[in-house]
Structure formats: structure tokens, C-alpha cells
């Protein structure tokens, strides 16, 4: 049973493989060995035990199959001694039962729990590497794809390598045994077994054609899927009702059907010819050919007995089947190697930002950024260049500028999530690299525009560490969280939850988890700032989902709570920049203007221009109240 299931699983795998990037034979060997070693380390002895059991199983299959038939027919024809024969069959029956029980037990009670352990081991290797790579790795599509592929197959690839190995060994065994059996009957029969091997090159051509076909089909499928999405996605629904697009889409769809039929016919003809030849070489040339020969040898030449004839027909099919199985099995090692290559090159990757265990411990202080530059991988232009600024303890710094001007990139560099391509960041005169990475990052309390709440309790989401276990410490934690929630305006909502601050957020873990709306989630995320004590607070447009009233209150609270902490905030709305000690205007990755709001307005540059544009409609009213409107403002300015 178990056997059969395993077989089908890997077969579908082999069928779905599409293109095979080339990989060196040595590497194939090394990669597969790597995985086997991993299994061995996760559970010593398991591999050896598995292979031995499988070999026993292969032997059993042989003896209970072709060999048993030979014994039955021969002994009946020769002597007619049935008593001994009954005994032999009965013993084989008991052995077979016992062995299958052993196999089933081994897989269900040993292998299956073991698989889970092994998965954890590989997962932890991957996690450890992923959390240590710099953020730019996520943005490198090639690297990221490698990781996602490695991750997606974490669950079964290791075992598949093992199955391929055991299958190969058993195939070799069965093949040898069947060939030996045929040899003793008549060596000529071996030739028939080799026929499928001879047409192996056709199989390669057929696979190439299938790959080419599915490549051609991809375009058709894309188009079909696109048409479908337009019809079912909510986001297209209004336009699909208000325009004539549906007619065009249906025309396009009809076109894809014609394309499909054209492609299918083009490849289908060649593929079916090849398939037909392959199939016939097995069914007719090998099996019926060998049968024909055997019957000839029995009746005309008299060199083979009738019993052997039965055996031949049974085992010639096996030989041909095992042979082609072996060929595709070898290909599967190749396929494993490709996946493992992803995994290994991912694990071998050396992060550019590494923990400096002997480093200084970062604390409060004065941050100085000088001539900082950063270029995204593969980009032609620096995303950030020649940025210099300082943040003193307790200062409120505003970073403003249009989308894509480099503000968020700057924040990520400050948190040492990217490695700067030029310039440096220092804290109290020591460069960032001199500090331990963990203490450096702990120095900042960031809330990002695209913050995420995790599937943990509200309190843990805010503290970002497990809640203290008991007594005093826990009471302290609870008080901190409560106060932080009050400040951020989320307390009322959290108290309404079934378990208060211990309620698990998101439905990922717990189908009873709370799902917060955008604004509520933002308030909870902002509570982190109130609960934390890090000397630097970074707010990257944290109030975008709040309405102006809530935004206003929260902003006031934030400034009050952070009176003695440095706050760096990014905002689109220039109105909030008025409160900052210093404003830095980013444009095209550079700081183009800096100074207090007043100074910048004074300079009458880009900032002043932006501010006025945003303020125009609002201020007009003030002005019109005082009569004169816009002119009055200009006059005031020129004076």
C-alpha cells in the first residue's frame, strides 16, 4: 500500500518538471549527498534501516512474483509433488505478511514522525539564514525566488531524495534478479528487455516537445486567465459594466481558444507518433515479441518448458518496466539537485551585514550621518546620495519629500537593514559597524507605513517580546501595555476584545483571533512607541489610515510622550513638519533643503513652494477674512 502511494507521488513530480537548467554531474552528486547527510544527522541509522528494509522488500517482490511462478509450474510439470509446494507457498505467504507489516510499521510509526523532525531541522536552517540577510536580498528577485523555492519544498524534498535512492537500489536489484532468471532460461530473451532502452532517445525528444508545447501554451493561458480575472475580480466590476470591454474580452477569449487548438494540433501530432512508438516498443516488440520467441523455442525448438514460458512473459514486462523506471529515476536525482542547489546556495550566502559580537553596546546619543549613499541592486542610479544630517537626543526631525525621494530608504539604512554603498552613520563618533547589530537595532523603535501585526497576543505585539511570566514583572508589563494603548487611543477597542490584551491578533493561528481595521491596527502598532524606551523613535507615515481628528490627537500625544526621545518622522502632509526642530527635504535621493520650518519658508525654495501649494486653499480663507487674499500673502512675503 505504502509502496504504491510513494510511487505515484514521485511520478507526478517527474511529470510536472518543465525545464531543466543544466547542472554539473558532480554537483548533482554533492547536492543529493548533502540531503542524505541531513537525514542522517536528523536521525542516525534511519537511512541505513530504510535502505535495508527496502532491499528486503525488493527481494520479496521478486521471490513472490516471477520466481514463485517458475517454482509452481516447474515442480508441477516435473514431479507433481504438491505437498512440498503448498508448504513453500505458505511459508512465503507468512514471510510476505510479516515483511509488509514491518514496512508499514516502519513508515507509519518511525518514518512519518521522523519526517516532521527533519522538516523542522531544515526550516530552522532556512529561518536562521533568512533573518540574518540584509533587506536588499528580499528585493533581489533572483535571490528571493531561490529562497521561496527552497522554502516551498521544505516539506518533502529530503524524503524524496531518500525515496529516489531506495528506489534506484531496488530497481537495480530487481533488474539484476529478473535478468539472471531470464538468462538461465534463454540468454536471447535479454535482447527483448533492452528494446525500450534502445528507444530511450525518443523519450527525450518527446519530453523536449512537451516542454516546448507548454511554453507556447503559457501565453495562451496568461491571456485566458487575464480575461477571466477581468470578469470575476471586484476591481474590474464597475468598468466591465460601464464600458464595452466585455465584448472585446470575449473576442480575445475566442482567439485564445483558436490558438490553443492550433498549438495542440501542431505538437500533438508529433508527440502522439513518438508516444505510439514508445508504447508499441513495450507492448508489442518487447512483451509480445518475447512471447512469440518463447513459444517458438518451446514448441519448435523445445529448449524452453511451458512453465518457463509463463515466467518469461511475466518477467520480460518487469525488465522493460524497471529499465525505463531506472532511467526516469536517474533524471529525478537531477531534479532534486536543482532544488537542493537553491537551498545550498541560499544557506551558503554570506550576509553583508553581520553581527559584530565584540561590538559596543549602543545607547542614547547623537547620530551623525555623513555623505550617505545607497544604490539598489541592478539600479542605474543611486537611490540615495550624499545625505548628511544629525539627530541629537530629544530632537524632532521631519523628513519630507515626494514619493520615491529616498526617505524610507534612508530609514532602512539607519536601522542597518541595508549596507550603505557610501558614506557612514555614526553614534557618538563611533561608526555603526562598531556596535553590536542587536543593540543598534534595539536603539530604534520604528513604526513603518507597511507595519504588520503578527499572530500573537496584543500585548506581545506591543512589547515585541514574550510577556514576563509571573508576579511583579508581569504586572509591570501589563501596566506598560495598558498605558501605551491608552496613549495611542486603542485601549477602548482592546478592552472590548474577549481576552483583553491577551487576545490573539489575526486569524492565522486561531480562528477566534481578532481582525483589526486599518485604523485600529495602526493605533496598536503606534502603541509600541509608547511602550518602548528606545532613545530613537522612527515614524514612517504612521497615521495614513487615520482620519484627521484621530491623527491630530495621536500626534499631540506622541510629541508629549516622546519629549525626551529623539523622533524622526516622515510625512506627506507638510502641516506636521511645522512642529519639527528641523526639516529635511528629500528630492531624487538627496537632501535638497534643511532647516527649521521658518528657515525653509524664509529661503523660499522648493519646500516653501510645496508648502504653499498644499496650504493655498486653507490659507486663502484666513487671508480673505483679513481681506486681500493671496495678494496679501505675497505682499507679506516680499516685505
Amino acid at each position: 500500500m505504502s509502496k504504491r502511494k510513494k510511487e505515484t507521488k514521485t511520478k507526478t513530480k517527474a511529470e510536472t518538471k518543465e525545464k531543466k537548467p543544466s547542472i554539473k554531474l558532480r554537483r548533482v552528486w554533492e547536492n543529493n549527498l548533502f540531503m542524505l547527510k541531513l537525514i542522517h544527522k536528523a536521525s542516525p541509522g534511519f537511512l541505513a534501516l530504510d535502505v535495508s528494509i527496502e532491499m528486503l522488500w525488493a527481494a520479496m517482490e521478486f521471490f513472490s512474483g516471477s520466481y514463485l511462478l517458475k517454482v509452481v509450474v516447474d515442480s508441477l510439470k516435473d514431479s507433481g509433488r504438491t505437498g512440498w509446494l503448498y508448504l513453500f507457498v505458505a511459508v512465503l505467504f507468512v514471510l510476505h505478511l510479516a515483511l509488509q507489516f514491518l514496512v508499514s510499521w516502519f513508515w507509519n510509526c518511525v518514518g512519518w514522525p521522523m519526517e516532521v523532525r527533519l522538516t523542522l531541522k531544515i526550516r530552522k536552517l532556512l529561518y536562521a539564514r533568512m533573518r540574518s540577510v540584509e533587506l536588499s536580498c528580499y528585493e533581489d528577485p533572483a535571490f528571493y525566488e531561490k529562497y521561496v523555492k527552497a522554502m516551498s519544498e521544505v516539506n518533502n524534498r529530503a524524503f524524496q531524495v531518500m525515496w529516489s535512492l531506495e528506489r534506484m537500489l531496488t530497481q537495480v536489484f530487481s533488474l539484476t534478479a529478473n535478468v539472471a532468471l531470464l538468462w538461465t532460461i534463454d540468454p536471447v530473451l535479454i535482447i527483448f528487455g533492452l528494446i525500450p532502452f534502445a528507444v530511450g532517445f525518443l523519450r527525450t525528444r518527446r519530453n523536449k516537445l512537451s516542454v516546448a508545447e507548454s511554453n507556447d501554451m503559457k501565453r495562451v493561458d496568461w491571456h485566458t486567465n487575464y480575461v477571466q480575472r477581468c470578469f470575476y475580480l471586484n476591481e474590474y466590476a464597475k468598468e466591465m459594466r460601464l464600458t464595452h470591454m466585455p465584448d472585446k474580452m470575449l473576442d480575445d477569449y475566442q482567439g485564445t481558444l483558436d490558438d490553443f487548438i492550433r498549438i495542440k494540433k501542431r505538437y500533438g501530432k508529433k508527440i502522439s507518433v513518438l508516444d505510439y512508438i514508445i508504447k508499441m516498443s513495450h507492448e508489442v516488440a518487447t512483451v509480445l515479441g518475447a512471447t512469440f520467441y518463447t513459444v517458438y523455442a518451446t514448441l519448435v525448438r523445445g529448449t524452453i518448458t511451458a512453465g518457463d514460458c509463463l515466467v518469461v512473459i511475466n518477467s520480460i514486462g518487469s525488465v522493460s518496466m524497471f529499465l525505463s523506471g531506472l532511467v526516469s529515476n536517474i533524471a529525478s536525482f537531477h531534479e532534486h539537485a536543482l532544488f537542493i542547489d537553491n537551498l545550498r546556495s541560499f544557506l551558503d550566502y554570506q550576509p553583508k551585514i553581520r553581527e559584530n559580537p565584540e561590538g559596543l553596546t549602543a545607547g542614547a546619543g547623537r547620530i551623525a550621518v555623513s555623505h550617505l549613499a545607497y544604490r539598489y541592486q541592478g539600479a542605474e542610479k543611486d537611490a540615495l546620495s550624499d545625505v548628511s544630517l544629525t539627530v541629537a537626543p530629544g530632537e524632532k526631525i521631519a523628513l519630507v519629500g515626494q514619493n520615491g525621494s529616498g526617505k524610507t530608504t534612508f530609514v532602512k539604512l539607519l536601522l542597518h537593514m541595508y549596507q550603505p554603498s557610501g558614506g557612514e552613520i555614526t553614534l557618538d563618533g563611533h561608526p555603526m559597524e562598531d556596535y553590536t547589530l542587536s543593540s543598534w537595532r534595539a536603539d530604534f523603535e520604528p513604526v513603518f507605513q507597511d507595519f504588520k501585526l503578527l499572530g500573537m497576543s496584543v500585548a506581545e505585539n506591543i512589547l515585541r517580546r514574550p510577556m514576563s511570566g509571573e508576579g511583579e514583572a508581569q504586572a509591570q508589563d501589563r501596566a506598560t501595555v495598558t498605558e501605551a494603548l491608552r496613549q495611542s487611543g486603542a485601549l477602548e477597542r482592546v478592552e472590548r476584545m474577549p481576552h483583553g490584551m491577551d487576545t490573539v491578533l489575526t486569524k492565522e493561528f486561531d480562528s477566534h483571533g481578532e481582525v483589526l481595521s486599518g485604523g485600529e491596527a495602526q493605533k496598536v502598532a503606534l502603541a509600541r512607541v509608547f511602550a518602548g524606551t528606545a532613545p530613537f523613535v522612527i515614524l514612517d507615515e504612521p497615521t495614513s489610515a487615520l482620519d484627521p481628528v484621530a491623527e491630530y490627537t495621536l500626534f499631540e500625544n506622541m510629541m508629549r510622550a516622546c519629549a525626551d526621545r529623539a523622533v524622526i518622522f516622515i510625512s506627506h502632509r507638510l502641516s506636521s513638519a511645522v512642529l519639527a526642530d528641523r526639516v529635511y527635504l528629500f528630492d531624487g535621493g538627496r537632501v535638497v533643503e534643511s532647516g527649521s520650518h521658518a528657515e525653509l519658508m524664509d529661503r523660499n525654495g522648493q519646500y516653501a513652494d510645496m508648502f504653499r501649494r498644499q496650504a493655498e486653499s486653507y490659507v486663502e480663507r484666513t487671508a480673505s477674512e483679513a481681506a486681500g487674499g493671496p495678494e496679501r500673502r505675497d505682499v507679506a512675503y516680499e516685505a
Partner: protein
Amino acid sequence: MKRKKVTTRTTGHFSALRSDIRILGKVWRLQPSYIVCLAVYALTWAFINSLAVYFRSAMFNALDNGTDFWGVAVYILSLALFYLLIFIPDHLYRLIWKPVLERKLRFRMHRELYCKAQRMDLACYDDPDFYNQFIWAMRESDTRAIQVVEAIGNVVNHLLSSLAIIGLLFTVNVWISILMLAGNLVAAFVVDLIGNRMWIRYDTEQNPRFRRQDYIDRVFNLPDYAKELRSGQVADMMIRDQEKTTGELEAANRRTGVKATLLYGVLYNVAKRGTYYGTILIMIGDLAAGRVLLGGFAAAVSALWILQSTMQSLSDALAELPRHALYLEKYFAFLDHENQLVSGTEEVPPFQTLTFENVSFSYAPVKTEKETALQQAVVAYEIKKGEKRDGEEQDTDQGTDRGGEVLHGINLTIRKGEKTAIVGYNGAGKTTLIKLIMRLYDPTEGRILYNGIDIHRFDLEAYRARIGAVFQDYRLFAATVAENVMGGRYDGQPGTEAEVRAALDAASFTGRLSTLEQGLHTPLTREIDQSGVNLSGGEAQKVAIARVFVRPYDLIIMDEPSSALDPVAEYELNHSILNAADSRERTVIFISHRLSTTRFADRILLFADGRLCEQGSHEVLMAMGGRYARMFDMQAEKYRAGEAWERTQPAAT
């Protein structure tokens, strides 16, 4: 792993087999050749399978009887010839005809669904339950239909094969045929029955753990979480959780492993081996006594192999049917769904006025009771099976907060040539108002009058064609610029081309257009065409806006048309839109929550909590000192503070 795939036999769902019959009927109507081919194929294979056994037995009997060489060889040669001939149509069918027929069937099913979908009430999209059902019908019903038809074909094929072979064995030895029937029934059907229950239990119990594992994988996987993972102790907490989950899973696997060993290692094992060795023992007796010739033995041995696989396939195929049926009911429920919005018949005159008379609106669930019950059955079934995806669950939950009334007692009139602004916070009902005007929904209470006539009485398509709208969440299609502007086919006539160019110009897209190599024929988005152009948010918005200028719409509606733009671009675009509209004496309604952009309007409507609270020009509303004035002040305060600074500054220096 060592587990059988879960093929579920849902007890109590046999009434659902109706859907299987119905889908068969539907496929027959859409693509009769598909069913004919499938039936012929199933019958042919049942025939081939039994023929192979028969030939083998006949050949060995001849061998045993001492027939001469050619007497035996004729069996082999005719079987070879038969194979050579029958596999030609077999290959053509499997590799060409069947995929093509399937594709055609899918196409026809889709076309039917699409036409239905396009006429479907927009309200259906707002009911997450219904929407899930709809998406499901769109994405999967064709595959399910094909699977059902195939499963029925397989049942016929395997049933006939099994019967033919057992019948053949009957002539050899009655006991063997009984033994094989019983043994395979136990091995395939009984074991599946118990096994499926066991795996379902396992999946149901372990599903939360699998989900947790996936979730933690995602946290480490997705760029969205990357920043969070690097601050605080989040990563360690997640790893600890993963270890705990794995431990629990391992223990569960051990427990279930014991049961699996009893089932497969003992019951299945004994049934399967018992059949095999039992057959051989009986045959030894028969052969020794001379009751059976070698042919009978050979037939029994090949029947052993073939029966085992056909019976298993039969069990699998039978198990599939009720499972598909339940899902297909969703498909039919969607096809049977009646629209609530019914088109009128009257022609639509040019626009004069639009009046809301005491209009209220609430998003009501669109599903009938029967559909809800069905959905619940499916959910219960999926949870039981452990197949429920977390995403879907979240979708359904969003439905709960949609109950309340969104608009209450709205009265207002919009006249030709007016520029009206609608302002208010998120959720105040602004966008809903627009959808009511477009008749994408019908009001729950009250009436909407167009030139004094209830809009129900107009032909729906003609009515909508009077109004040009750009939505906040506008979409461009993977088509050329011109097709996008025309909203469908573009005929390329000089007249049409001029119109398209003029519209793009009014939306200030001309500058960008001149940089596109293929001009109006440039394909947009890369969804289909790799060489397509991806426009930036602001540019795309301009193309969307051009749609309302390309046709002589009487009434233009813009729902936050400038949301993707930065303040400077927003300012420019608003001016250009208003100018373009002005020069054509069009009526414009636009929505924004930035009050600074709406003050140019002739009239401002302030919505709060679904009510029309204040209306009038900017000056009137400011003078009134109500909600609008407060909102405006709040948004303006900081700016004014800044300006105040500025004003005092020069004096100070």
C-alpha cells in the same frame, strides 16, 4: 508519505448526486461530442482489458494442449495487430482530440458564466459569501465538470473491466473469482472507507497546526514582515512557536501512525496477500488435479494484477462523485441566481436634472436562504475535511460589519452644468451615493429621478451610457491606449482617432503619449503582452479620466480622481479637469476628502454618517460655521500656523 490521499466519501450527500446528473446534462448540451468520445473510450478500454486476459489464457491453453506452433502464434500475432491498430486512435484521442474537446467545453462553460457574471448585480460583489461562491464558480467549475464526467467514465470502464475479468475467471474456478472479488473489495473499498475517516480526523485535528506552520513560514518568507522580523525578539518567538508546533505534530503522527499500521500493515496486508497466495494455492490444487490447464493459471495471474488496479480505481472514482457534487451545487446556485436589479425599457433623454427623493440605502446580503444553507454545508464539509483555507475564512468575516444603513434619507437635486463637490470622511457614504446614481445599486428606500422620471423606468444600459465615471479604484485593461480610452473596441477611423486624442489632451496625457513609440496603439500593462507599458499611478489615472471626455456624457462623476497624485500634480489636474468640463458645459460631480481641492465647486455637499449634513458654496458653509467649517479649520490649522510664522518672520529680521 505513507498516507493514502484523502478521497472522501461523504455520507449523507448522496442526494447531492443530482448535481452530478445535472452537470452531465449541461456538458451534453454544451459539448455532446465530449461525452460520446468519453463513453466510447471507456467501453473500448473495458474491452481491451478483458481481451488481454482472454488472449493470454487462450494462448496458454493452446500451449498446454499440444497445439502446433502456428496454432499458438496466431493468438500472439492477432493480439499484436490489435494493439498496433487500437493504439493509433487511442493516442490521437488522448493527446489531441480530448484536450481540444476539453478546452472547447471549458470555453463554452466560461462564456456562459462570463455573460452571467457581467449582468450580475454589483451588490453581489459586496456579499463576501456570494462573491466567494462566484469566484469559485469562475475558477473551478469547469475543471470539476470535467472531473465528474471523467469519473463517471472511469466508473463505467472499471466496473465493466472488473465484471468481465471476474466473469472470465468464473469459467476457470468459481472460488477464485469469489476470492478475488472479496479480497479486492476489502482491500479497496473497506480499507478506503476506514482510512478516509482516519485521515479526515487527522487532518481536522492537525489543521490548526499546519496553518500555524505555514503562517510562520510566511512570516519568514514575505518581504512585508522582513522589517518586523529584524526588530524586537519576534524571530525567536516565532521559532519557538514552530518548535512547539512541530513537537505536537510529531506526537500526533505517532498516534495516527499506530492506527495506520493496524489498517494498512494488518487489514490491507492480509486482504491483499491473502487474495494473491490464496489464488495461487487454489490454482496449484487445480493444476495438480488436472482440472485446469496452464492457460487458466496464466489468466488467474494476470487477472490478479489487473483486478487490483481496476477495483482501486473504481473505489477512488466512486468516492469522487459526491465530493464534486457538493461543489457543483455552488456552480448551479450561481447560474440560477436571479438579479435584483431589473432594467426598464424607456429611452433616456438628455440630462436636465437628477433628484434624490428621501433615498436610504443599506448593503443587504444578496443570497437567498437556500444559497446560505448550501454555503454552510460546504464550509462545514471543508472544516471537517480540514481543507478550509484561512483566506476564505477571513473573507467571510468581513461580511458581518456590512449590515447597517449607509445612506439615510438623502434629498438633493443636481442641475445641468453644475459643478458639485461631495466631501466627508471615509465611510460617510460618498462612494455609495455615486453607485446609486450610476444605478449599480437600487436604493433600499426612496427614489432617484432623472429629469423627473424614476430611473427604474429607463433602459439600464442606455441610462448608464449617459453618465461618464472615473472611480477611485479605476482600472486600466490590458489593451491598447485607444481601446482603454474608448472602453472597448477601437475602430481606428480618423474621426474616432481625433476624438481619442482630444480626450487624452483634456486629461493632460498628451505629453506622455508623445513618448510612447506606438502612440495610441501602445499596449498597456504587462499582464498579457511582455512589451506592454506600465504607466505610473498618475499617468494611468489620466488615461482613466480621458474615458469620460471621449464620449459626450451629460454627467461626469469623478470619485477622488487625484488620490494617486502628489499635491502639485493634483492641483494641476483638478484645474485642467474643471476647465475641460467647463468648456463643454458639462455637469460634474466630484468626491474628495481633501477639502482644499473641492472649494472650486459651485456647491459642496457635506456627508457625515450617511446623511447630507450641509450644502452650499464654500463661502456659505464657512459662514455657517458648522461641521464643514470645523473640518476645514482642522485640516487648515497647521498650514495656517506655518503661514503665520512666515508672516512674522520678515518683520522680525
